[in-house]
């Protein structure tokens, strides 16, 4: 039996190889090594929730009707009897209330979408804090960044499809923001909506964007992202035997086929469990879109919430005297919309996208980096990361201020005043505290390397002194703590050469040097063997 299977397999393999020369690929891929660490699986969560999105999405398209034609509801739901609604909304109700398992699929789809975006952000944070974006991976950081933006587009276009009151008000906000763009805003709005808001064409347009354009782009970029991962080989955490010139790990076949393949089923299973138990986006509560009603708790899904928070945070009148909407030569410039909804996200995302270059200017390092940083060994980067997260979380909290106010019996006005100050103060504070903490941890590492671990054993010396016995670190333990780059601030050539001629590019170098000082002026160098020797002598 076994022999027959083997011959069959060999025959098939031979047939395929003679037509594709796949043998070479298999030889290359099958035993490719991947380092083992839980944090390397965050990106997989995103990938797998995307696969779940595709699977459940195909099911939903079998029932969803992307049309804004008005029909009268005659289905089983008592609270919608005889209500006029678009076909999009009616078909959503139909698949939720009349198709067994249809609501489950909707909920699987929506929960996966929330998970998809959440996993992307978490994965990006891991890459950021460990410095995995450094050379040669800057391009892949950009690919991943674009995927993140596309995930927002995919999520928002899908959220709006059921044509309910909640998402309709979200679209109206988008329309208002679009219209505020100077000069062309009104035309862009007409272009998107096919006329005045809401028009009769938006849902079909969003549908095409949601099921064809955006997922198509995501698929292409995911392929590119993974190709680059294979090309670069995975990064690894510092440890004995792990260098910038090798990769230590377990082979793709069979270990990662089983682990990563199995992990897909785990992700799918957990999404199914959550979707079975928790309601998500109950559009039957919101009702079909009508421009007049609105409900308390009108918020977008979490990944857009930060923009909503910024819109809430921005005052229309600065200090109650300076208007944030200007009328210049008969034209209206709405800074109260442009700043929070377009300029702020633009700067925020722009900084995130360009971060690898900003840091490489500061280090001036041109080598390939394949061993990751422990976040504490890059205090400024870690501080910047925490500051960005703080900034983002404040906006998300401001975006939920009515919910917070209601839950904790606070005044939403007070919360807004607090966050208006907090948005400037707290990220700076977070940066400062984080950097201090990192430096503190680095000092503790030095202490450990120099004096060893506390054992809790107290011994009494002959001359009566009590002392705790410290156990020196093993070679492997020590290596993790001392094997990081000790980067000093950039040295640049002087402005004038010896003949007194001003050097080209001096300003740029000067800028890089300033940046570099911010990063590396205050730093804790790793222990050298010399220092360790000295510390040992001191003990005896």
């Amino acid at each position, binding site marked *: 039996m076994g022999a027959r299977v083997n011959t069959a397999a060999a025959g098939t393999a031979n047939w395929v190889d003679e037509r594709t020369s796949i043998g070479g690929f298999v030889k290359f891929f099958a035993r490719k090594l991947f380092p083992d660490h839980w944090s390397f699986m965050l990106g997989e969560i995103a990938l797998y929730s995307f696969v779940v999105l595709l699977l459940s999405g195909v099911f939903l398209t079998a029932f969803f009707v992307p049309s804004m034609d008005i029909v009268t509801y005659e289905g089983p739901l008592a609270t919608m009897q005889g209500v006029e609604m678009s076909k999009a909304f009616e078909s959503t109700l139909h698949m939720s*209330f009349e198709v*067994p*398992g249809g*609501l*489950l699929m909707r*909920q699987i789809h929506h929960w996966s979408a929330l998970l998809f975006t959440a996993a992307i952000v978490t994965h990006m944070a891991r890459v950021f804090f460990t410095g995995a974006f450094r050379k040669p991976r800057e391009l892949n950081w950009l690919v991943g960044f674009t995927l993140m933006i596309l995930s927002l587009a995919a999520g928002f276009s899908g959220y709006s499809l059921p044509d309910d009151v909640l998402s309709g008000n979200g679209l109206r*906000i988008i*329309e*208002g923001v679009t*219209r*505020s763009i100077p*000069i062309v*805003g009104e*035309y862009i709005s*007409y272009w998107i909506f*096919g*006329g*005045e808001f809401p028009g009769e064409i938006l849902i079909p347009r969003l549908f095409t964007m949601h099921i064809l354009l955006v997922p198509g782009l995501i698929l292409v970029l995911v392929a590119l992202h993974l190709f680059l991962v294979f090309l670069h*080989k995975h990064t690894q955490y510092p440890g*004995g*035997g792990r260098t910038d010139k*090798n*990769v*230590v790990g*377990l082979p793709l076949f069979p*270990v990662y086929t*089983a682990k990563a*393949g*199995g992990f897909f*089923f785990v992700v*799918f*299973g957990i999404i199914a469990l959550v979707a*079975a*138990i928790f309601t998500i986006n109950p559009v039957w509560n919101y009702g079909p879109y009508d421009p*007049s009603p*609105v409900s308390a*708790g*009108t918020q977008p899904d979490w990944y857009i919430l930060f923009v*909503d928070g910024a*819109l*809430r945070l*921005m005052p*229309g009148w600065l200090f109650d005297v300076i208007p*944030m*909407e200007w009328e210049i030569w008969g*034209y*209206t410039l*709405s800074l*109260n919309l442009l700043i929070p909804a377009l300029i702020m996200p633009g700067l925020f995302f722009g900084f995130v996208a360009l971060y690898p270059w900003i840091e490489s200017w500061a280090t001036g390092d041109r080598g*390939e980096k394949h061993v990751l940083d422990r976040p504490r060994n890059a205090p400024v980067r870690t501080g910047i990361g925490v500051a960005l997260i703080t900034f983002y979380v404040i906006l998300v909290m401001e975006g939920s201020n009515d919910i917070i106010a209601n839950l904790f019996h606070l005044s*939403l*006005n007070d919360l*807004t005043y607090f966050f208006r100050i907090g948005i400037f103060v707290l990220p700076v504070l977070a940066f400062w505290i984080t950097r201090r903490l990192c430096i503190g941890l680095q*000092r503790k590492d030095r202490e450990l390397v*120099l*004096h060893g671990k506390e054992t809790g054993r107290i011994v009494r010396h002959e001359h009566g002194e009590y002392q705790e016995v410290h156990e020196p670190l093993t070679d492997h333990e020590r*290596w993790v703590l001392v094997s990081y780059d000790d980067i000093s601030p950039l040295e640049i050539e002087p402005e004038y050469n010896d003949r007194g001629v001003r050097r080209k590019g001096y300003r740029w170098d000067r800028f890089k040097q300033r940046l570099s000082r911010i990063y590396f002026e205050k730093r*804790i160098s790793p222990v*050298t*063997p010399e220092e360790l020797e000295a510390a040992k002598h001191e003990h005896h």
Partner: protein
Amino acid sequence: MSTTENPTSHESDNTPESFEDPGLPYHRPRRADVDPKAEKKAERQVAALFGVSIVGTVVAIGSYMALDMTDEIDSIRFVNMAIGIGIFLAMIGIGFGAIHWAKTLMRDHEMVEERHELRSSEEGRAGAIQNLKDGAEDSGISGVKRRPVLVGTGVFAMLLAPLAILWPQIGNMGADWNTSNFGHTMWRKGMRLTRDPDGTPIKASDVTIGSAFHVIPEGLNELEHHKIEEKAKAVVLLLRLDPRDLKIPEGREDWSFDGIVAYSKICTHVGCPVALYEQQTHHLLCPCHQSTFDVSDGAKVVFGPAKRPLPQLPIAIDDEGYIIAQSDFHEPIGPSYWTRLSDTSDGLHADETEGSSH
């Protein structure tokens, strides 16, 4: 212990010998590697997990076949939950099984693979550059036989060609591009204010102090085209305050009636319906971004991101005692846009002869 105290002043120039990489740590075998019993046990566990998956599939399909979904909310919930838990078991069983297999029974002794610098070899680069040069020479893009006219027109044609597709297509997408529609609504002189959503007219006597009526224009529900677009602009909130509390802005003395005022319900921030009326404070709150307007003082902004007051709809009472509009709004409703002010000056309908001379 003073050696740790001056790490920052440490100069790393004349680096002393650095620590040496101790190499890969010793590989400690797992229980299943050395104990055949543990190996058997792990095997049984993996098989059991795969068994869970099989049960899950049966549960999912069985629930779909056997459970009856009626109109009752309970039954819908139950069917979805049963199928969902079936899918959960079917998936998680395979997942945990495969991973447990990999962790306990497959290789866990790490291997090492060398990396190669990504940069191509010098030879490869030189070859690439030569090939490109040759190609450019052959084509006349550069080199001895340069053909700048061809290159110029070719590039220009290629930049222009997409417009052949985009211009007509994008041109279609904005319908009539008549953005002056932003400037006015369907309100007309003499049009009755009616209840949202049923469209019945409202008498002034219906509106008692502290009341809030959500209003649409008379005839909106009968519109055949652009009903929803018109509703999106025309919705109004009709309120009655104690006339003593009402501060009437200059020039609008005859826009209200005995404490009854009508304001656009569309926020001047980004266009959400501003619908939360607190009758004690006379504040209107937008639930989207919390702009707060003071109805007793011309709906001016008292909090939040909006800058302008809500536009007021001038109202009057007709012979039968119903509330009617005196005209359209005197400025565009909703969020600001670039040419808002030019729509303000001639925003009123041309067919309005009276009541529009603002």
